[in-house]
C-alpha cells in the first residue's frame, strides 16, 4: 500500500495540472507586474528600464490624483470598519439570540452579497438618477426637495454616493460571519450569565463579543483589504469621476493601463495595491495580537 501511495507518476498526474495553471496564472503575474513597474512602457514599443521612478511619481509631486485615490480608499476602509461592521455586528448579535424568524432575516440580509456588482451598480445608478431616481423622488415626497441632487454627477457627493452601495452590499456578509461565530459559543455560558442576572447588552459586551474576537479580526481584515482593492461598483457607477472625485487606486490603475497605455506606471499602482493589502493585513493581525496580550 505504501508503494501505491508513493507512486510518483500518479502524484505528478494528480498535482501537476493544477499546480501549473496556478503558478502560471496566479503567482507568476505578480512577479511580472513588479518587473513591469520598473519600466517606462506603452505596451507597443520596447520598455525602458527606469528603476523606481514610477514609484517616485506615485508619491512625490504626484499630479494624477493617486494620493487622493489612496485617501479615498482609506475613507472607505474607515466607513467599512466603523459603520458597516457595527451594523453587521448588531444584526448578528440580535439574530444569534433566537429571534422569531431568525432564518428568514439571515437569508434576506445576505441576498445583496450574492448579486453581481454590475447588477447592483446599475440598480443604484437608477436609484441615484437625478430626474426619475428613487432617492430624489422620495426626498421630494417627504418635502426635502432642497436636498435633491445629481448624486453621482456632483463631485461633492459622488464619493459618498458610490460608497453607500459598497457598504450596503457587504453588511450581510459580515453579519453572517459574525453570526456563525456567535452561534458557535456554547449556550450554557449564556444561561449561567442570565442566572447571575446579566442583561442582554451585558451578555453581548462582556461575553459574546470578546469570544467572537477571532472572527472580528477576520471581518476587520476583509473590510479593510476589500476597501483597498475596491473596483467593481465604482467602475460601474462613476469610473472614478466626476473630475476624479470618486477615484480609488484600482480605477486609476485600470484607466492608466487600458486607456492611457502607461503600462509601467499602472503596474506600479497594481504593486502598490498588493503591498498595501499585505501590510494592512499584518498591521491588523498585530493590533489584534497586542490586544490579546493586554
Amino acid at each position, binding site marked *: *500500500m505504501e508503494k501505491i501511495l508513493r507512486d510518483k507518476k500518479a502524484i505528478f498526474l494528480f498535482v501537476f495540472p493544477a499546480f501549473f495553471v496556478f503558478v502560471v496564472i*496566479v503567482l507568476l503575474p505578480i512577479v511580472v507586474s513588479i518587473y513591469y513597474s520598473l519600466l517606462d512602457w506603452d505596451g507597443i514599443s520596447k520598455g525602458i528600464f527606469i528603476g523606481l521612478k514610477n514609484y517616485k511619481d506615485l508619491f512625490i509631486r504626484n499630479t494624477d490624483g493617486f494620493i487622493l485615490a489612496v485617501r479615498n480608499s482609506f475613507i472607505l476602509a474607515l466607513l467599512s470598519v466603523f459603520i458597516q461592521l457595527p451594523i453587521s455586528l448588531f444584526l448578528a448579535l440580535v439574530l444569534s439570540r433566537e429571534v422569531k424568524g431568525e432564518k428568514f432575516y439571515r437569508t434576506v440580509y445576505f441576498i445583496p452579497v450574492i448579486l453581481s456588482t454590475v447588477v447592483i451598480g446599475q440598480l443604484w445608478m*437608477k436609484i441615484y438618477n437625478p430626474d426619475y431616481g428613487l432617492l430624489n423622488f422620495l426626498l421630494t415626497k417627504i418635502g426635502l426637495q432642497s436636498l435633491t441632487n445629481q448624486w453621482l454627477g456632483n463631485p461633492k457627493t459622488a464619493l459618498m454616493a458610490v460608497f453607500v452601495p459598497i457598504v450596503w452590499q457587504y453588511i450581510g456578509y459580515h453579519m453572517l460571519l459574525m453570526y456563525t461565530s456567535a452561534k458557535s459559543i456554547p449556550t450554557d455560558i449564556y444561561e449561567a450569565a442570565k442566572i447571575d442576572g446579566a442583561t442582554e447588552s451585558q451578555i453581548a459586551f462582556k461575553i459574546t463579543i470578546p469570544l467572537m474576537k477571532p*472572527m472580528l479580526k477576520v471581518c476587520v481584515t476583509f473590510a479593510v483589504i476589500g476597501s483597498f482593492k475596491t473596483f467593481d461598483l465604482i467602475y460601474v457607477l462613476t469610473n472614478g469621476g466626476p473630475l476624479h472625485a470618486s477615484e480609488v487606486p484600482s480605477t486609476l490603475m485600470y484607466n492608466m493601463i487600458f486607456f492611457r497605455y502607461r503600462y509601467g506606471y499602472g503596474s506600479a499602482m497594481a504593486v502598490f495595491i498588493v503591498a498595501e493589502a499585505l501590510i494592512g493585513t499584518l498591521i491588523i493581525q498585530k493590533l489584534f495580537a497586542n490586544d490579546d496580550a493586554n
Partner: protein
Amino acid sequence: MTLIKGGGKVNNINIEKQSNKGSKKIGYYILEIFLIIWAVIQLYPLFWLFLFSVKDNNEIFGGNIIGFPHIWRWSNYAVAFSSGNVGKYFLNSVIVTGLTIAISSILIAASAYAIVRMKWKYSKLVLTIFLMGLMVPIHATLLPLFMILQRLGLLNSYAALIIPYVAFAIPMGIFILTGYLNTIPIELEESAFLDGCSIYKSFYYIIIPLIMPALATIAIFTYLSAWNELMFANTFVNDDAIKTLTVGIMSLAGEYQTDWGPIGAGLVIATVPTVIIYIIFSEQVQKSLVVGAVKG
C-alpha cells in the same frame, strides 16, 4: 452560607424579571420592527428593479416611479433578449461558469487528494504555495495576464476567461478540500488497495463520492465568483459574441441609456439564476462563503 447567598440571588432575579417584563417586551417589539425595516432596506431595491423592468419610459417619466405598473410590459424582456443580446450573454455566462466549475473541480479534487493522502516529500510545500494564492488580489495579475493571453491569441475567447477563473478558484478549493479530506477515515481506501484496487480507481470510485459535499461548497463559491466577475471579463473580452452577462449588461445599459425597461429586464435576467440557486441552497450558499472566510 454560600447556599443561602445563591438562593437570595435567584429570588432577586425573579423579582427583577417580573418588573422588567413590560419594558423587555417593548424592547423586543422595537427590535423586531428594526429587523423588519432592515429586511425592507435589503429587499426593496430589488423589488423596485423588478417593477421598473415591466414599465415603459412614459410611465416612469410620467411620475409612476415607485408604484406598480399600470400595464405590465413583459415585452421589455423580449426586447432585452432579442435586440439586447441578453440571451447570448446569458448562454456565454453559463458556458464560462459551467466549464470553470467542471475543470476546477477536477483539478482541485486531484491535487488535494495527492496532497493529503499520498506520500511525497514536497506535499507540505506545494500546499503552502497553493494557499499563498488566497492572498493574491486579481489587480496585480491583470496586465501580465492580458499580455500572456494576447501573445497566445486567446483574447476574445471563452478560454480567456475560463483559464483565469479556474486558476483563481484553485487556492480556495484546495483550502476547503484538504481540510475536508483530513476528516475522512482512510480505512475504506486501505481495504480497497488490499483488494488490488489502483490509486486511480480508488480516487474515482471511493474518494470522489465521499468528497461530493465539499465539492458542492467549492462549486457554489466558484459559481458566485465566476458568474459575477467583472474586471477580467471586461478586459479580456470585447467581442459581443463572447461577452458574459456582467459585461454584456454594461454595454446594454450604455445602449439603452434612457430606456429603463429593457435594462431592468436584463438586470433581472442576470440575477434570476443566482436567486434561484440561493433559494434552493440558501444554507449551503451561506456555508460556502463562511468556510471561505475562516482560513486561519
